[in-house]
């Protein structure tokens, strides 16, 4: 396959967009439906990435690819899910302030552990040795295939979120987000609902982290900073927290703008890309969060339309 026309930055940019859409969709289930503000998205994602990396690189597996990838990714997903269960248990009966402490604390703990446990994670030096679970030719081709595989996973996450809106489970989540005491008085264990929500979505965040590890092939503690949480949150908020399409639209407009348009198509001086652009990107994201929530709190797509949905599902 001749891929000379394809810019290497474009593949990583697209991968970034696809992955953040996935995180944004999962955050949508937490923040948009159940109104749990997870400020520790990067913690679950990073835990998945590091769990995958450590298992993949440090363990001497008796089988080759693709099994090595599949086993390690499954384990990383499971570990992230268990972390979600634990964090969910800690914060499910706390108010927004407690949720902020719990999730931010978890993300910080993951970052601290990635730094201190350098025998396993490589610490501040970073860790190499990861690779694609296949070899179809040149790096660019491998990366393109990985982009496609990740996109399939993210489409699956999208379809799941889309179905959740059309299921009793989604209705319960919206009820929990809207009026938790009233939901409890209807005989619903809101605690358990939040717990399961956190477990499942965190596991999926971990899987995305593991898939990111494969793509970057080098784990660096600089990558598990607050920027990941910010990217998912700003995309979701701009598009609309309450809508399934919100994360898709918002992430394309934010991460897509910076990581694809600015990165690949603007004729800027070379040193800008390493110095100014990443900083401006974050500053712009922060500003976007503020401006959107001040002037259009429900984002570009607006509020969820249960009336239209109910008419479609159960109208006479």
């Amino acid at each position: 396959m001749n891929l000379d026309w394809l810019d290497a930055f474009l593949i990583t940019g697209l991968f970034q967009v696809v992955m953040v859409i996935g995180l944004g969709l999962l955050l949508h289930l937490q923040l948009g439906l159940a109104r749990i503000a997870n400020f520790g998205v990067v913690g679950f994602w990073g835990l998945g990435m590091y769990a995958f990396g450590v298992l993949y690189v440090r363990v001497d597996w008796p089988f080759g690819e693709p099994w090595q990838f599949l086993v390690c990714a499954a384990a990383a997903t499971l570990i992230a899910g268990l972390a979600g269960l634990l964090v969910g248990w800690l914060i499910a009966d706390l108010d927004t302030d407690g949720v902020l402490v719990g999730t931010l604390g978890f993300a910080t703990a993951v970052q601290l552990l990635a730094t201190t446990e350098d025998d396993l994670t490589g610490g501040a030096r970073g860790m190499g040795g990861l690779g694609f679970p296949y070899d179809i030719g040149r790096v660019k081709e491998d990366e393109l295939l990985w982009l496609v595989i990740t996109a399939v996973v993210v489409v699956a996450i999208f379809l799941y979120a889309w179905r959740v809106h059309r299921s009793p489970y989604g209705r319960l989540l919206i009820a929990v987000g809207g009026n938790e005491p009233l939901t409890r008085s209807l005989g619903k264990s809101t605690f358990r609902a939040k717990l399961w929500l956190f477990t499942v979505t965190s596991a999926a965040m971990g899987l995305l982290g593991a898939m990111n590890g494969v793509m970057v092939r080098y784990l660096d503690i600089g990558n598990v900073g607050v920027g990941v949480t910010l990217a998912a949150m700003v995309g979701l908020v701009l598009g609309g927290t309450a809508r399934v399409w919100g994360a898709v639209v918002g992430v394309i407009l934010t991460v897509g703008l910076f990581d694809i348009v600015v990165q690949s198509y603007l004729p800027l001086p070379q040193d800008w890309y390493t110095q100014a652009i990443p900083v401006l990107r974050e500053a712009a994201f922060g500003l976007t969060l503020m401006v959107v929530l001040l002037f259009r709190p429900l984002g570009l797509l607006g509020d969820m339309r249960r009336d239209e949905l109910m008419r479609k599902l159960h109208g006479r």
Partner: protein
Amino acid sequence: MEFITQSLVIGLTEHAPLVLAAIGFALLYRLTGLINVAYSETITLGAYFGMWANTTFELNFYTVLLPAGLLAGLVSVASYLLVFRPAKQRGVGVLELIIISFGLSIFLRHGLQFIFGYPVRFYDVPPPDTIPVLGVGVSSFRLLALVSVAVLALLLYLFIQRSSLGLKIRALASDEGLAQVSGIRPLVVTVLIWFIAGVAGGLAGAFYGVGSNVAPLLGWRQFLMILMVALVGGTWGLGGVILVGVGTSVALAAMALQFDQVLYAQLVLIVAFVVVLKIRGRRVAETAKV
């Protein structure tokens, strides 16, 4: 015995800015109900203002505290007037307010990074004298930090508990509508709260800055610890914040002496605070509206 005195002295002096910052943060949280993530940038800006005054006008560190605190206070007030007040007037929810403050924090932090770049900067001050306290050598800046924290905490306490303006602040916090009817001007009082909180944050930043270095991430690195101290200690008022803050400082110092990895101390404290919140949350969770 030596371990205890060492932990106490190092904890109290090295982490005194934490207590100061937590008081400012808790003041905002208790009186306006807002969790302000951008408070971390008030701290960072305090450090930068101090450094700027110090290197530009060659002022000594003690003089520098004045512009650092005042300017940080003004920034804090500006963030209220430009962001949080309009947000409240638009009826933005609690959760959205936190996200807004998160956005502001990110914006300021990277704005600073854009202006000042990555390299860390330092205060241009003569090396501080080392004063032995209970057999532990302590830099004079850190002793000053401890003293100013103690003085400021006392002043704040007296101001809020005893002065007529303090009474107004407390009245406003408990019932805005009622306070307004009884002739309190909410805007003036609220601006004052934000100013005081900003001054506390700015001073903390200056102490952090002179203690090590100045970088755009300075405040954010401390934020989680400040948040936890203010949230857990705040339940028992200003005294609780000071007590929990001092306890945290000493625990951080003690664990730093014990563990070969300083970061483990933070890890232990994160777990401890979240568990405290969990236990406390359990008790109030069942009782809610309906």
